[in-house]
């Protein structure tokens, strides 16, 4: 290898170049990860699990000391239905988090993409200045 070639390689491996490539690598996969995560969260919003609370889980037999055992004495059906509706509404409330998760994933993409584009252009400009893209 000639001295000139070593100089070109040393320039290509400069801290500045290394920095640009590292930033590009990390931000590119932030965009990729954000895109995959966005699709998953969008699907979670479009096709969420429907709340499925068995009515039998809305009542638990009480322990009554006078009988020294559990007594099965559930309230009327209307009240059990109301309890189920309450539990299912709670489930709906937690499902609302998928909107937040979708926005979080999109934030990854929106913030990382311009950083990637900027640094990728800087790499191109540095290579043009060095004029070594075809030489090393």
């Amino acid at each position: 290898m000639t001295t000139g070639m070593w100089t070109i390689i040393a320039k290509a491996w400069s801290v500045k170049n290394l920095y640009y490539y590292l930033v590009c690598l990390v931000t590119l996969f932030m965009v990729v990860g954000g895109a995959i995560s966005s699709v998953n969260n969008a699907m979670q919003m479009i096709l969420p699990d429907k709340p499925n609370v068995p009515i039998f889980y809305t009542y638990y037999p009480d322990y009554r000391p006078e009988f020294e055992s559990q007594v099965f004495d559930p309230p009327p059906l209307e009240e059990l239905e109301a309890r189920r509706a309450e539990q299912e509404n709670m489930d709906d409330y937690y499902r609302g988090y998928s909107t937040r998760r979708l926005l979080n994933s999109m934030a990854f993409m929106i913030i990382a993409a311009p950083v990637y584009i900027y640094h990728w252009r800087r790499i191109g400009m540095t290579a043009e200045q060095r004029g070594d893209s075809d030489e090393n």
Partner: protein
Amino acid sequence: MIVMKIRWNLEHVYFYLVCFIALILIIIGAVNLTQTAITFITPGYDYYGPYGPGELTRDLDKWEERFGAEFVAEEKERYETLLEENHRRRLMRDLVSGLAFISVAAPVYIYHWRRVARLESEQES
């Protein structure tokens, strides 16, 4: 004497690294799809649900005695219908998730792999 010309070009290293990570993502997507297909083929079993053998505290016979057999049957149908719908929705979500891994990572992989090939051919010429 064999002389090995090692090209530790920064560009090369970057492109190979991107290809490596993108390929891993494609593999993860393919594994997800395979697992979804296996889940689709093999039926699920609701062992811990209110009607499963693992559930010993629901006293279904007492519910039947109090509210009637029809009520218990209706509840069972409602529960199993929702369970089945949720299972189908989960399968669909898993399918799209696997496809998302592949469809996002594959263009990245293809683009960077072509750039590697171009760099190699430029250097050889």
